C-alpha cells in the first residue's frame, strides 16, 4: 500500500531551505537593479503646494525623479477600488504619487530612482516639498463627530453605512426579560510580516515584455492590475511571487503604489528597478487593522438565551478604501459565532481618518466581532449568575441544525450559511482540556497564596475558503516527476508540503516525486490569491480534482497497454499495477511516455514504452480526437459558498495584585477545520495565530498623536511579542468534515488569532472582578482600571462568575 499521506503529520519540505538561508526573498533578487526610494508625507493631512527637486539633481548616481505630474495616463489616475459594494457610497483610493493632497503620514509624494538605495535616499533627503497643513482627523471619536473632514467631499467621514437585520429587533428587545448594554473598543494593530512589501521589475526590450516579482499574496492580481495601468497586453506581463516572508493580509491588497510605479519606471527606463520596503515604511505606508468602537444591546431570557442582538459599530478604515469594506462586513456577520442570536440587527459606519489605510489582517474583522459577542456572553452569564460555558451552550447552533442559514449576506455576497460543526462537542473538549470544572479549586489555592488568577473563554466560527475559484495543474514527466502548480501564492503556510500530500495521496506517488509551484503566472495564469484561510480549501480541492483526472488518464492508458480493465488497476508508489498481480505493471513515467506519442526515442523510458505499443492502427490518429498528448490534468474548484470552521479557546491568566502585570499561565485551543491534510501544519498555523492574537491582546497598538504622527513606528516601540511572551499552547482537534468540497476540508489559517482578545479579556475580568471592555490591555492600563474600580467608577461584576469561584 502507498503510505497514507493525507493526514500525515510530516515535516514541512520547504523548511530546510527556508531555515538555512536557502530562501529567495524579494531583496535577494535583482542585485544589479536600480533602486527606487520615496519621499513620503510627514503630515497627516495637507495640500501639496510645491515640490522642489533642484538640490537633489547633483546627487551622484541619480537616475530620475518623478512626481505626480510625470505619471502618464492611467498610471496617474487613482488606484483601483478592488471590491466595490453598494453601501460603500464614498469609496476613495489614493494616487500612486500624491496629486494635490496627502491624507496620512507616509503617503508617497515623490519617487526617486538611483544607482543604489543609499543614493536614492540621499536624493530624497534633498527634495523639498511645501505643504499647507490641514487639520487632521485622528481616531474614531474625531472621525465620528464629523467636525473635521478627511476628504472634503465625504460628509461625516462616512465611507460606508451598512445595516442588516433579521427579524424584528426592536420588538424582540421590548419583549426581553433582560436587556444589557455594552460599550466596547478595540485598537489598531497590523500584520507586520518580517519581510515587508517589495517589488522588482525587469523590462525585456528584445521582447517588449515585463516581468514583475512582487512580495505579494496575489501574483495574478498584480499582473492584471499592472497590465491595466500600463495599457499592456496580459500576454506581455508576467508576475512571480518568490519566497515571501509573511503576509497576514497586507499583501493581498494590490496594486500598492510601488507595485504600479516600479514596473512603470522599469518599462519607461528600459531597465530593471527594485524597491524593498523598510520597517518604518511598512509602519506608515502599508496597512493596519482592527480599530473599532462597538455598542451592543442584547435581550435574553431567564435562562440566558438570546432573544435580540442589536449591534452598532464604527470602523476605522484609515485614509482610503482600496479593499472596500470587507473587514467591517466580516465583523458584522462573523460576530454571531456559534450562536443563534434571536432577532439580529447590525449597523456599521466605516469612517475615514488621516491614518494609514485599513485592509484585512489575519482574522479580518473577526477578532473584533468575536470580542463583541463573547464579552456579551460573559455579561449575560454574570447578570444571571450562570456558568459562562452554560450560557454559551444554551445558545449554540446544534449539529442537527446544519446547514444553518443566518439569513445574512457574507463577505462574498453569498448567504451566511454554516455547513458543518459540532459546537457542543468542541466545548466539551475544551472544558476537559483546560479543566474548566476544576478551576474553582485551583483559584482557591492560588488566592490562599496571595495570587490572583482568572479563567477566560472565547468561541468563534470562521467562514473560510471563499471563492470564486482556484485551479490546479498536474503534469507527470517521463521520469515520473510530478509537477504541480497552483496560482495562489505562499507566504510560509507550507503549501509545498500540504499540496504535495494531496497529490501523493490522490495519485499514489511517493511524495518525494511531487514538486509544487505556487504564485507564478507563467505556470498557472488563473488564480485569485492566498487570504481568508482559503488555500487548502480552494487549491487543495482543485489540485485533488486535477490529480483525479491524471489518475483516470493514467489508468486508461495503462489498461490499454496491459490489456486489462482500468478497474482492475491501482497506482502504488508511482507504479500502475494489476490488483492482486503486482508483477503486471508499468511506471507512471512510462505511462507519461505513452501519453505523448513522439517520433523520437530520447531515453530509456521512451524505449521501454515501445514494448507496450500495440502497433499503429492506421485508421486512428496517434492522439485520439477526444484526447490530448501528455499525462496532465487541470481542474478548478469553485464553491457555491464559504465553508465554516470553528474553534474555542480558554486561558488561565495571573495578574499581579500590586503591579498589575499580566501573565498567561495556560492557553488551550480546540479547533475544527475538518479533516487535516497535515496536523502539524495546522497546529503551526494555530500557534502562529495565537501568537499574533496575544500580540493584539496584550502588546501591540498603533500610537498616533493628535497630529497624526505614529509614535511607535519601529520594533523598538511596537511591541510584537517575542517567543518569551507567547505561552505554551495546548491543542486538541475535532475533524467534522465539510459536505461542500471533495476533500471535506475547512480553512485553518486565521483561526488562532480570532478569539484571543476575547479570551484574555474574559480571563482578566474573571481575575479582577470587573469587566474589561477595551483591548489591548497593558499592565499600566489594568492598574488604572483598578483604581477607577476602587473609586466606584467601574462596577464590579455582579456574580464574579459564581460557578468558577465555588468549588463543586
Amino acid at each position, binding site marked *: 500500500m502507498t503510505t497514507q499521506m493525507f493526514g500525515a503529520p510530516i515535516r514541512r519540505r520547504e523548511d530546510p531551505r527556508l531555515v538555512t538561508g536557502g530562501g529567495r526573498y524579494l531583496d535577494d533578487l535583482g542585485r544589479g537593479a536600480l533602486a527606487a526610494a520615496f519621499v513620503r508625507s510627514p503630515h497627516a493631512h495637507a495640500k501639496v503646494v510645491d515640490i522642489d527637486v533642484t538640490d537633489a539633481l547633483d546627487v551622484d548616481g541619480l537616475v530620475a525623479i518623478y512626481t505626480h505630474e510625470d505619471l502618464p495616463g492611467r498610471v496617474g489616475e487613482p488606484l483601483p477600488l478592488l471590491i466595490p459594494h453598494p453601501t460603500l457610497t464614498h469609496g476613495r483610493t489614493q494616487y500612486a504619487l500624491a496629486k494635490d493632497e496627502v491624507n496620512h503620514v507616509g503617503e508617497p509624494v515623490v519617487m526617486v530612482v538611483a544607482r543604489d*538605495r*543609499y543614493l536614492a*535616499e*540621499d536624493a530624497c*533627503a534633498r527634495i523639498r516639498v511645501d505643504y499647507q497643513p490641514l487639520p487632521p482627523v485622528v481616531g474614531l471619536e474625531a472621525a465620528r463627530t464629523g467636525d473635521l473632514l478627511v476628504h472634503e467631499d465625504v460628509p461625516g467621514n462616512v465611507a460606508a453605512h451598512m445595516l442588516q437585520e433579521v427579524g424584528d429587533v426592536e420588538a424582540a428587545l421590548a419583549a426581553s426579560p433582560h436587556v444589557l448594554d455594552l460599550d466596547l473598543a478595540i485598537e489598531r494593530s497590523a500584520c507586520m510580516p518580517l519581510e515587508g512589501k517589495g517589488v522588482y521589475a525587469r523590462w525585456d526590450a528584445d521582447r517588449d515584455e515585463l516581468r514583475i516579482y512582487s512580495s505579494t499574496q496575489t501574483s495574478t492580481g498584480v499582473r492584471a492590475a499592472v497590465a491595466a495601468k500600463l495599457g499592456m497586453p496580459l500576454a506581455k506581463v508576467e508576475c512571480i511571487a518568490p519566497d515571501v516572508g509573511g503576509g497576514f493580509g497586507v499583501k493581498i491588497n494590490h496594486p500598492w503604489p510601488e507595485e504600479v510605479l516600479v514596473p512603470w519606471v522599469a518599462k519607461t527606463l528600459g531597465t530593471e528597478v527594485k524597491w524593498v520596503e*523598510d*520597517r*518604518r*515604511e511598512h509602519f506608515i505606508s502599508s496597512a493596519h487593522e482592527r480599530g473599532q468602537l462597538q455598542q451592543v444591546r442584547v435581550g435574553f431570557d431567564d435562562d440566558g438565551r438570546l432573544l435580540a442582538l442589536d449591534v452598532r459599530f464604527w470602523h476605522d478604515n484609515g485614509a482610503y478604501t482600496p479593499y472596500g469594506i470587507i473587514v467591517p462586513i466580516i465583523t458584522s456577520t462573523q460576530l454571531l459565532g456559534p450562536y443563534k442570536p434571536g432577532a439580529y440587527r447590525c449597523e456599521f459606519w466605516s469612517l475615514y481618518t488621516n491614518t494609514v489605510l485599513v485592509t484585512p489582517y489575519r482574522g479580518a474583522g473577526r477578532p473584533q466581532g468575536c470580542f463583541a459577542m463573547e464579552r456579551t456572553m460573559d455579561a449575560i452569564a454574570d447578570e444571571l449568575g450562570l456558568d459562562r460555558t452554560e450560557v454559551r451552550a444554551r445558545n449554540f447552533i446544534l449539529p442537527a441544525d446544519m446547514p444553518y442559514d443566518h439569513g445574512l449576506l457574507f463577505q462574498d455576497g453569498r448567504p451566511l450559511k454554516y455547513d458543518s460543526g459540532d459546537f457542543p462537542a468542541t466545548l466539551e473538549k475544551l472544558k476537559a482540556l483546560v479543566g474548566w470544572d476544576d478551576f474553582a479549586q485551583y483559584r482557591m489555592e492560588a488566592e490562599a497564596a496571595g495570587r490572583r488568577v482568572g479563567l477566560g473563554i472565547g468561541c468563534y466560527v470562521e467562514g473560510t475558503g471563499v471563492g470564486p475559484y482556484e485551479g490546479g495543474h498536474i503534469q507527470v514527466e517521463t521520469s515520473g516527476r510530478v509537477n504541480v502548480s497552483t496560482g495562489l501564492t505562499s507566504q510560509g503556510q507550507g503549501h509545498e508540503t500540504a499540496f504535495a500530500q494531496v497529490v501523493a495521496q490522490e495519485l499514489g506517488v511517493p511524495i518525494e516525486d511531487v514538486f509544487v509551484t505556487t504564485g507564478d503566472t507563467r505556470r498557472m495564469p488563473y488564480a485569485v490569491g492566498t487570504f481568508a484561510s482559503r488555500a487548502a480549501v480552494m487549491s487543495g480541492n482543485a489540485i485533488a480534482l486535477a490529480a483525479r483526472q491524471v489518475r483516470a488518464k493514467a489508468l486508461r492508458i495503462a489498461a490499454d497497454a496491459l490489456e486489462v480493465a482500468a478497474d482492475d488497476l491501482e497506482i502504488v508508489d508511482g507504479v500502475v499495477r494489476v490488483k492482486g498481480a503486482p508483477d503486471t505493471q508499468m511506471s507512471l513515467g512510462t505511462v507519461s511516455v505513452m501519453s505523448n506519442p513522439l517520433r523520437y526515442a530520447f531515453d530509456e523510458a521512451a524505449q521501454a514504452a515501445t514494448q507496450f505499443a500495440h502497433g499503429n492502427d492506421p485508421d486512428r490518429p496517434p492522439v485520439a480526437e477526444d484526447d490530448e498528448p501528455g499525462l496532465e490534468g487541470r481542474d478548478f474548484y469553485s464553491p457555491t459558498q464559504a465553508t465554516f470552521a470553528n474553534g474555542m479557546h480558554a486561558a488561565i491568566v495571573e495578574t499581579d495584585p*500590586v*503591579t498589575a*502585570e499580566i501573565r498567561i499561565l495556560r492557553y488551550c485551543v480546540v479547533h475544527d477545520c475538518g479533516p487535516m491534510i497535515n496536523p502539524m501544519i495546522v497546529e503551526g498555523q494555530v500557534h502562529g495565530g495565537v501568537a499574533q492574537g496575544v500580540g493584539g491582546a496584550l*502588546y501591540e497598538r498603533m*500610537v498616533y498623536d493628535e497630529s497624526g504622527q505614529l*509614535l*511607535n513606528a*519601529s520594533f*523598538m*516601540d511596537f*511591541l510584537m*511579542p*517575542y517567543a*518569551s*511572551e507567547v505561552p505554551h499552547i495546548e491543542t486538541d482537534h475535532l475533524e467534522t468534515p465539510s459536505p461542500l468540497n471533495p476533500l471535506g476540508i475547512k480553512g485553518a489559517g486565521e483561526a488562532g488569532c480570532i478569539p484571543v482578545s476575547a479570551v484574555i479579556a474574559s480571563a482578566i475580568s474573571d481575575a479582577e472582578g470587573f469587566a474589561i471592555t477595551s483591548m489591548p490591555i*497593558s*499592565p*499600566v492600563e489594568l*492598574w*488604572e482600571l483598578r483604581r477607577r474600580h476602587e473609586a466606584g467608577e467601574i462596577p464590579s461584576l455582579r456574580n464574579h462568575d459564581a460557578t468558577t469561584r465555588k468549588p463543586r
Partner: protein
Amino acid sequence: MKPAPFVHHAPRTVEEAVEVLARVGHDGKVLAGGQSLIPILNMRLASPAHLVDVNAVSGLDDLTVTADAVRVGALVRHARLEHDQVVYGASPLLRRVVRHVAHPVIRNRGTTVGSIVHADPAGEMPAVLALTGGVVEVASARGAREIPCHDFFLGPMETALEPDELAVGVRFPLFGATTGTAFAERARRHGDYALAGVAAAVAVEDGVVSSARLSFVSVTDVPGILDVTEACRGQAPGEIDWSACDDLVREHLAPEDDIHATAEYRAMLATQLAHLVLAEAATDAVAAQGDSAA
C-alpha cells in the same frame, strides 16, 4: 533606513584612534558594537560625517579582575562580561544585571563601555557603574584622564566625554565582604528596556544593616546613587519594613510618561522593586558572610 554618507576610519591602535578623533571627532562618532549607533544612523536621526570604527584597535578587549575592581576594556562585549566566571566570582552583580541588557545576539556585539558612553537613562550598565562608584578611563591626543561616574553622566544621553576622546575602559569597584547586591527590573517584553529597574547594595555588619544604597534604571535622568541607610540602619535584615525607604525613593525619582507607561506607574514599580532588591541584597550579604565564615 539607510545611513547618510560617511567616511569610515579603521584605526589599529589607540594612538591612531585618538589621532583620528582629534581631527574629525567634532563631526564624527566612535563605532563600537553598533547596537545603539547603527539604528540611529539607519534612521538618519544622526548623520556624522565620520565613523571611527574601533573594533580593530588592539588592546581594548581586556577584561581583568584586580583586588579592588573589575576592569572592562572598550571592546569587551556584554556577553563576555556575562559569562566570565572570574568576574562573576568577584562581582556577581555584573552578571545579574548584564543579563537584562537586550537579548543574546545584541549582547554578543554590543559593548559594556559603549552602553555606558551612550548614557541612556534606560540602560542597565550606567546604573551599575553608579552604584559601584565606578570610573571611566579616557584617552585623547591631549592625554589620558579618568572621570568618576558622578562627573561622567551629565544628562540623558549626555556625558562629560569630549568629541576627541575615546573611552578605553571602565572600572567597576568591588564591594567589601559585608555587602550583598541584587538587581530587578520590569519590562513590557523579556529583554526590552525596562519600565523601571533597581540595583541595590546593602552592607550587613554584626547582623544589622550598616549601609543601603540604590541606583535606578529608566526612572531618573542620570544614573546616581540613592543612600537609604537612614531608613534601615541598625536593623536586622529579616525584620526591616523596607517601605520606610519609600519617601526617599520617591523624592529621588524623576520618572516620565511615555507610550509604554505613565510616570506614576513607573514610580510605583520602582518603589516595589526597591523593596524587593533591598531585601535580596541584605539576604545576599548575610549569605556571603555565612559562606566566608564556613
